[in-house]
C-alpha cells in the first residue's frame, strides 16, 4: 500500500503557496516528479549527454542505450508486441497529429471519422483538420447525462464508411473510463481503425494494448510522473508501416539523394531530428518508479481517495458534481450552485489549493452540460486525505466569501 512518506519523494510538494502549504490537486493537467526522475535528468547531462544513433563513440553509445532502454520499458509496460511499435513524440497531442496527418493519405469524400463528444480538444481538432482537407465527414459520438459514451448511438454511427474511430481511454474533464475493448471490437467489426488517447489512463491503471486490440494508443510522460515535452505513440506494425512519415529530416531516412529519399524502418521513420533524449531517459526512470510503487497500489490508493473526496464534497451545500459513470478515475469535476468556477478557483488559489477551473480543453462537454466551465480536482498517488480535507474546508470558506 501507499505510505505517508511517499509524498516526501516529491520535492515540490513541500513548499508553501500564498503562505499556505501547497495542496496540489491538478494532477490531470500534470503530475509532479519524484526526486529520482529529477536526478535522472541531471545525471544525463553530467554523465551521458551525446546525440543518439549517430556518433560512433563511447558517449553516444551510452546515451543511445539509455534512450532505447526506455522504448523497451514502454513496450513491456504496454505489452506491445514489438519495440518498434513505440514511437517517441512530443506528447499525446503530437502522437494524435501524427496519425491524423498520416490518415490524410487514406481518406476521401464519403469516408467517415468518428470522434467523441467527451474528447479532449487534442483528439478532436486534428480530426477536424484531416476531415476538412480530405472531404471526409466527422461524426460525433454523444455522451450520456452520466458522462459515459452513448454505446447505442455509437453502434448506429458505425458503418462501412467509418474509417477511423478516436476516443479517450479516460476523460480528462469527468474521469469517465471508457470500455476500450468493447468500443474497439465494435469499430473493428466495421473495418475501422481505432486510436485511443491514453494520456489520463497510464498514470492510473495498467494498459495492455494487445488485449485492448487498439491500433493506436497515445500518451504523455508528464502525466505519469515523468518529464514534459515527451510522449509516445503505440501503433500496430501493420498500420505504422502503411502510414506515411509525419516529418522529414535526419534520423528518419535510409538513403537520401538531392531529389528523393527512402525512409528508415520503424520506429525511426517517425522520429525525425534529434529527440528529447534527457526526457526519454528520465521517463524510463519514472516508469520504473511507478512499477516499484505498483500500479495496482496506485489504483487502489486513488480509488479509496476518490471515494473519500466524494464523501467530503457531498457535505458541501450547493455542490453539483458532474459525471457519474459506472467506472471513474481520480477526477472530481464540480461547480457550486450560483457561483462561477473562476471565482471559486481564484479563492482556493489564495489558500494554496491548486485546482483547474475552466473548460479543461473539452468545450463540447461544457456545452453539453450547459456550464461555462467546472472546477476540477484530480488526484495522484501522493494525494493525502488531508489534501481533500483542505479542499473541502477551502470550498466552504470560498462559498462564505462569495455569497
Amino acid at each position, binding site marked *: 500500500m501507499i505510505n505517508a512518506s511517499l509524498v516526501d519523494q516529491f520535492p515540490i510538494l513541500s513548499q508553501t503557496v*500564498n503562505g499556505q502549504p501547497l495542496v496540489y490537486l491538478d494532477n490531470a493537467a500534470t503530475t509532479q516528479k519524484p526526486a529520482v526522475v529529477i536526478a535522472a535528468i541531471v545525471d544525463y547531462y553530467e554523465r551521458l549527454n551525446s546525440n543518439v544513433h549517430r556518433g560512433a563513440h563511447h558517449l553516444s553509445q551510452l546515451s543511445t542505450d539509455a534512450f532505447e532502454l526506455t522504448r523497451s520499458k514502454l513496450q513491456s509496460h504496454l505489452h506491445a508486441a514489438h519495440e518498434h511499435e513505440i514511437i517517441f513524440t512530443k506528447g499525446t497531442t503530437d502522437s494524435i497529429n501524427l496519425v491524423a496527418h498520416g490518415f490524410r493519405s487514406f481518406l476521401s469524400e464519403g469516408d467517415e471519422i468518428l470522434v467523441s463528444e467527451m474528447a479532449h480538444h487534442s483528439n478532436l481538432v486534428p480530426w477536424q483538420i484531416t476531415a476538412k482537407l480530405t472531404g471526409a465527414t466527422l461524426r460525433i459520438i454523444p455522451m450520456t447525462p452520466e458522462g459515459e459514451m452513448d454505446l447505442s448511438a455509437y453502434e448506429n454511427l458505425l458503418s462501412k464508411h467509418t474509417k477511423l474511430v478516436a476516443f479517450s481511454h479516460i476523460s480528462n474533464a469527468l474521469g469517465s473510463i471508457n470500455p476500450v475493448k468493447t468500443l474497439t471490437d465494435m469499430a473493428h467489426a466495421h473495418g475501422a481503425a481505432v486510436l485511443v488517447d491514453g494520456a489520463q489512463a497510464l498514470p492510473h491503471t495498467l494498459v495492455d494494448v494487445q488485449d485492448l486490440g487498439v491500433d493506436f494508443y497515445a500518451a504523455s510522460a508528464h502525466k505519469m510522473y515523468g518529464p514534459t515535452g515527451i510522449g509516445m505513440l503505440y501503433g500496430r506494425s501493420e498500420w505504422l508501416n502503411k502510414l506515411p512519415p509525419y516529418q522529414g529530416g535526419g534520423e528518419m531516412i535510409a538513403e537520401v539523394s538531392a531529389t528523393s529519399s527512402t525512409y528508415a524502418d520503424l520506429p525511426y521513420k517517425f522520429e525525425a531530428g534529434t529527440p528529447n533524449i534527457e526526457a526519454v531517459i528520465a521517463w524510463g526512470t519514472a516508469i520504473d518508479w511507478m512499477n516499484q510503487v505498483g500500479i495496482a497500489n496506485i489504483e487502489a490508493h486513488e480509488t479509496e481517495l476518490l471515494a473519500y473526496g466524494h464523501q467530503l464534497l457531498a457535505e458541501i451545500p450547493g455542490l453539483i458534481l458532474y459525471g457519474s459513470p459506472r467506472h471513474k478515475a481520480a477526477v472530481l469535476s464540480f461547480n457550486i450552485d450560483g457561483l*462561477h468556477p*473562476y471565482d471559486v478557483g481564484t479563492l482556493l488559489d*489564495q*489558500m494554496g489549493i491548486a485546482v483547474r477551473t475552466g473548460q479543461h480543453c473539452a468545450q463540447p462537454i461544457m456545452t453539453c452540460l450547459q456550464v*461555462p466551465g467546472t472546477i476540477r480536482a484530480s488526484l495522484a498517488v501522493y494525494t493525502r486525505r488531508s489534501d481533500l480535507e483542505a479542499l473541502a474546508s477551502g470550498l466552504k470558506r470560498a462559498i462564505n466569501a462569495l455569497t
Partner: protein
Amino acid sequence: MASIDDITADIVEDFEVFDNWMDKYEFIIDMSKSLAPMPAEKKQDINLIKGCQSQVWLDVQLDDKGLMLCHADADAIITKGMIALLLKPVQGQKPADVAACTYDFLTTIGLSQHLSPTRANGLLSMVKQIRMYGIAMQATSLP
C-alpha cells in the same frame, strides 16, 4: 466631485489595511456589490470586453453635463468586483481625465503583479476599454 487622483489615493489606503490576498479578494467581492445594476438592454454582446476569460459587459454614455456614466456587469463575482474597482475613480469624470488615467494604483495595491497572466490580461483589457471610451468621448463632450 473628488478627482481621479484623490479617489485612487483612497483605494490605495483601503488596500493598505489588508496583509493577505484572501482579505483583499473579500474586499474586491464587496466592491462588486456596490456596482449599480446594469440595465438589461445594455448587456449585449456588443458591450462584451474581449480578452477576458469570464464575461464582462461595459457600457459608457455621457450625461447631460458631458461626464462619463458607466454601467458594467460580469458573470463572475471577482471579475465584477474588479470592474467596479476600475470604474470607481472614473465614474462621473470628464472623458479627457479618464483618457489620461494611468491606473498606476493597480500596481501600488499589488493587483497587477498578483494576478495570473490570463487574469492580468483580462484586467488590462478592461482598463484599455475604459480609457478608449475616455479618448473617444473627449472629442464629443462639452469643454
